[in-house]
C-alpha cells in the first residue's frame, strides 16, 4: 500500500471540490472494497476523501412517492428499513444476500454501486488487465472466467459487476443523484454504468469529483411482489454465480407489468428489457417466462468456462417469476 492522505470534508460541496481539484483523490465510503484494492496495489490513491459523515445517511419518502436513500446509508440499515422490506422486498433480499454482516455494517449505498469487479486478473497487478492497465490485454477470455460475463462483454473485457444491491436497483428503475463540481444531476441507474467496449477502464458516466449523494426508488406498487434469488457456490459469503431480481404484476392471468434484472452475468447490473417486453400481456406461465429469458439470452456470448450460465439464467428467471406469479394469484 502506498502512503496516502486522508480528509474529512465538512460538506458534500467541499468533498466534491477537493476531489475534482486533486489528482489522485478518491471518495472513501465504507472502504470495504477500496481498501482491499489499495492493499493489493490495484488502487493507489493519493488522497482519500471520507464521505461517510456528510449527512447522506437518511432514508426518506421522495416528493413524488417512492423512497430517497442517502448514498451514505449502510447496507445493513437499508436492508432493515421497514419501508424497504414492505414495499421493495427485492432490495432487502439482495442486500442481505451480499457479503457478511460485518461488511454490510460498513458498506454504503454509493460505494456498493461503484465497487469493482472481482475478476481475478483485475485484482492481481502482476498480470495484464485492460481495465486496470488499458491495452495490456485480457487473460480472462483464455483463462479463468467461470464467473465472468455472458452478456454485454467485449473483446477487451468480460468482467462482471459484483453487486447484489445494484441488480435489485436496476430492476426497480432506481435514479441516481449525483453532485458534481459544476452541477447536480439525476440519471437512471442504467445510464450510470457503461459497457466496456474498448474502454473497460471507463466503468461509469461519472466524471472526477462526481459524488453519488442519493438513490431514489420510484413508486412501484407491484414491487411489493418482488424477489431476489442469488445462486452461489457457497451457501453464504460468496459472490453470485447468477442472480435474478424480479417484480411482477399479474392481472387475470396475464403479465400486466414486470421488472427483471440479472446479476453476475454482465459488466453492469443487467436490466433484461428484452425479456420484459416479451412477457408483457402474455399469460403468466412457465412457458412465457422461459421464452422471455431465452429471448434475453439470445444475445449471450458465453465462453468455454461460463456457458453453463445460459441454461442457469433461463432456469432461475423461470423459477423466480413462476414463484412470484403463483404468490399473486
Amino acid at each position, binding site marked *: *500500500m*502506498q*502512503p496516502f492522505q486522508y480528509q474529512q470534508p465538512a460538506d458534500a460541496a467541499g468533498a466534491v471540490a477537493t476531489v475534482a481539484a486533486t489528482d489522485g483523490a478518491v471518495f472513501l465510503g465504507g472502504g470495504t472494497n477500496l481498501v482491499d484494492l489499495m492493499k493489493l*496495489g490495484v488502487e493507489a490513491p493519493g488522497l482519500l476523501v471520507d464521505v461517510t459523515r456528510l449527512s447522506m445517511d437518511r432514508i426518506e419518502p421522495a416528493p413524488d412517492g417512492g423512497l430517497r436513500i442517502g448514498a451514505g446509508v449502510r447496507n445493513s440499515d437499508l436492508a432493515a428499513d421497514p419501508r424497504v422490506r414492505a414495499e421493495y422486498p427485492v432490495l432487502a433480499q439482495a442486500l442481505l444476500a451480499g457479503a457478511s454482516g460485518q461488511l454490510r455494517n460498513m458498506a454504503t449505498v454509493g460505494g456498493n454501486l461503484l465497487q469493482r469487479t*472481482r475478476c*481475478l*486478473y483485475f485484482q*492481481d497487478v*502482476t*498480470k495484464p488487465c485492460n481495465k486496470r492497465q488499458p491495452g495490456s490485454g485480457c*487473460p480472462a477470455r*483464455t*483463462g*479463468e472466467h*467461470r464467473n465472468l460475463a455472458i452478456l454485454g462483454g467485449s473483446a477487451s473485457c468480460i468482467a462482471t459487476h459484483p453487486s447484489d444491491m445494484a441488480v435489485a436497483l436496476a430492476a426497480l428503475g432506481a435514479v441516481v443523484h449525483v453532485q458534481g463540481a459544476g452541477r447536480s444531476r439525476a440519471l437512471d441507474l442504467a445510464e450510470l454504468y457503461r459497457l466496456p467496449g474498448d474502454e473497460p477502464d471507463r466503468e461509469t458516466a461519472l466524471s472526477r469529483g462526481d459524488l453519488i449523494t442519493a438513490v431514489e426508488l420510484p413508486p412501484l406498487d407491484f414491487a411489493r411482489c418482488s424477489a431476489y434469488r442469488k*445462486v*452461489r*457456490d*457457497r*451457501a*453464504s*459469503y*460468496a*459472490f453470485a*454465480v*447468477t442472480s435474478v431480481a424480479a417484480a411482477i404484476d399479474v392481472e387475470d392471468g396475464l403479465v400486466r407489468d414486470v421488472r427483471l434484472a440479472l446479476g453476475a452475468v454482465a459488466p453492469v447490473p443487467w436490466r433484461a428489457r428484452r425479456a420484459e417486453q416479451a412477457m408483457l400481456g402474455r399469460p403468466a406461465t412457465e412457458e412465457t417466462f422461459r421464452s422471455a429469458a431465452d429471448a434475453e439470452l439470445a444475445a449471450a456470448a458465453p465462453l468455454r468456462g461460463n456457458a*453453463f450460465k445460459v*441454461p*442457469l439464467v433461463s*432456469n*432461475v428467471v*423461470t*423459477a423466480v417469476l413462476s414463484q412470484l406469479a403463483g404468490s399473486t394469484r
Partner: protein
Amino acid sequence: MTATLSTPQIPHGTRIDGPDKVTGRARYAFEHPVDGAVYAWPVQSTIAKGEIRDTDASAALALPSVLAVLTPDNAPRLTADDPELALFQSRSVAYRGQLVAAVVATSLETARGAADLVRIDYAEVPHDVTLTPDHPGLYKPEKVNPNFPTDTEAGDPDGAFAAAPVRVDKTYRTPGEHNNPMEPHATIAWWEGDRLTVFEATQGPSRAATIIAGVFGLQPDQVRVIAEHVGGGFGAKGTPRPNVILAAMAARAVGRPVKCVLTRQQMFAVVGHRAPSIQRLRLGADENGRLTAIVHDVVGQTSTIKEFAEQTAVATRHMYAAPNRRTTHRMVRLDVPTPAWMRAPGECPGMFALESAMDELAVATGIDPVELRIRNEPAVEPESGKPFSSRNLVACLREGAAWFGWADRDPAAGTRRHGLTGTGVAASTYPARAMASQALASVEATGHYVVSIAAVDIGTGARTALLAVAADALGVPADHVTLRIGDSELPPAMIAGGSMGNASWSWAVTDACRALREQIRARDGAIPAGGLSAHSSTGDAIGALPDHARYSFGAQFADVRVDADTGEVRVPRLLGVFAAGRIVVPAMARSQFIGGMTMGLSMALHEESMIDPQFGDYPNHDLASYHVAANADVCDLDARWIDEDEPELGPAGAKGIGEVGIVGTAAAIANAVYHATGIRVRDLPIRLDKLLL
C-alpha cells in the same frame, strides 16, 4: 463412559486455554512483543520458470526505513537439504510465486511497499503446469509419502478384472487444494551470538528446531522454537516453511529481531498444498458383490525442485478383501509450487475414488452400499496378511446405518425430483500410529506437579487433553498440575501431525507420570525438599510393538438436497461414526471429528485451487475466491464413536482422530448427489454447473 477421563477441574467440554483465546490474551507467533523488531517482506517470482538475470534493489534501498534487501546476489549461504528452504541460494525459478528476494524495513508497511520496488530481471522459458493422465514426463517415484512402496500387486488383477461378471472402470479426479489454516505462517526470529530463537507457527517445535539448525549449519540445541499457540496447520505447518528461514536470515543480516508473516495470497505459493490427482479405479466382482479384483492407478504431480509423492492409493491396500489387486503411483514434475501434507494426505483423495467406485459397484450389482462393504470385509490386512490390532468398520457401518435411518432408503437414483434429495455412504480409514516422544514429570515439595513435553496445541485441544492425561496418570486433580508444551527446549516430541500427536504425547506423558507416581509411592508419599522427577522415552516401546496392522475406521453418511433449477447442493445432514480406539477427551474428539467432516464437505462442494496455464499459478489465491465451507453450509453435523479396545497402541489405547474425519466425507456426499440426481460427479468439487439438468 468408563473409557474416558474424568478430571473434575476441567469442566466438560471446555478448554483450559479457552478464556485466553477468546479474550485475546493467548499469543500467536506474530503477536509476541519483541523490542526493536523490524519486518521482512518477501518478493515473489512473477514467472513460472526461468532464471534470474539481474536484480536491482536500489529503489528499495533508497527508502530511509529500508534496512536491507536480500537477493540471490547477497544472501548468506545456507546448508539446506530441502530446496524449499534454500532461500535465495539459486538463480533458478521453479514456480510462479517462489520467494526470490526480500526487503527488511522498520515498518511492515514500508517493507511491503519496498518489495514492489525491487526489480528482478528474468530470462523466462516456457512452463508446464498441466497434469494429464498420459503426460510424457510420468515417472515412478522410489516410494510414496512418507515411505510406502510405490506399487503393490497380488494375484492376477488384470485377468481377474477381465473375467469378472461385474466391472467398474472409472477415472476420478481431485483438484489441488490448499490447507488454509486461519493463522498465516508467521515467525519472529532473533539471534544471541550463535543461538537462534524463533516464535514460530509450527506443528512441531522439536522437529522445526532440528531442521532450522540444519539450514543454518547449527546444532539443534542452538535453535529454540517456541509455539505457545498455533492457529491451525492441517499439515502446512508440519515442517518449517520459507517464512522462518527468511526471518532468521534477515535477523542475522540486520542484527535485530525480525518479524515475518505471509499473506494469504503468498501462502498459496510457498507453504504447500494438496496436489491434484487423476485416479483410475477398476473393481471386478461376482454377482454377489464379492470383489475379485481391485486396481487403483494414480497419477499425481510434484514440483521440479522437490518430490512429494502423495500416497493416494495406500488406503486401497487395506480396505477390502480381494484375491487379485494392484496399486500404482506415477508422478509428473511440473513447474508448480511444491505440494506437501494436507489433512490425511493419500487417504483423503484416494478414498474419494475408492468409495465412489464402491458406490458405483453397489449400483451395478443392486446390492445396498452398506451391505456391499460388509461383504468385502477382510479377516486380515489383505496385502500383508497381518492381523489388525482392532478393526471395527463393520460396526461403524451397522451402527451408523441404524442411527442414520438407512434402512428406509429407496435405492433408486434420481427419482426424488422437486427438491431432489438423496443419501450416500462411504467408509473412512486412517493409520493409527505413534512416534517416539519424551516427557518429564516432576513434583515440587509443595506437592505441585509440572509435566513437560515439546508437544504443541494447534487448535486441537491438545493442551487440555494432555493435562487430563497427566492428572489421571498422576492420580491428582488437574489444578495440581502445570503442563508445559510448545517449546523445543522441553523433552523432544512428535509433531502434531499424522493423527499421531496426542497418541504419541499421551504415551510419553503417561509413562513419565506413572513413573513419578511410583517414586512417590515408594517414598510413602514423602516428597524431598528438592522434589522428584521422572523422565520417559517411548522409542523402545514403540519399536517393540507387534507387527500388526493398525488403523482407525469410520462410516460417513450424507443427506443432500440439490436444487433442480440451479444445481446448488446443500447438505442438511452428515453423520460420521468412528472406531478410533479410546476416546480420551470426548469434547475435543468431537471437535476433531466434526472439523474433519466439515473440511470433507468443503472438499466435496467447494475447494479447488484452480491452475492457470497462462501464468502457471493459482489465480484464486484468496479466501474470497478459494471457497471453504461457511457456517451456512454446515447444518446437522454429528459425529459419534463406538467403544473400541485398542490393546497395543500405548497406555491410552488412543488411535488418533485428527484425520479420519475428513476421509470418505466427499465420497459420501458425491454418492448422495448421485442418489439424488442420477448424475455421478467423478471430478471434485461438485459445483452447481456439473449438476445443471
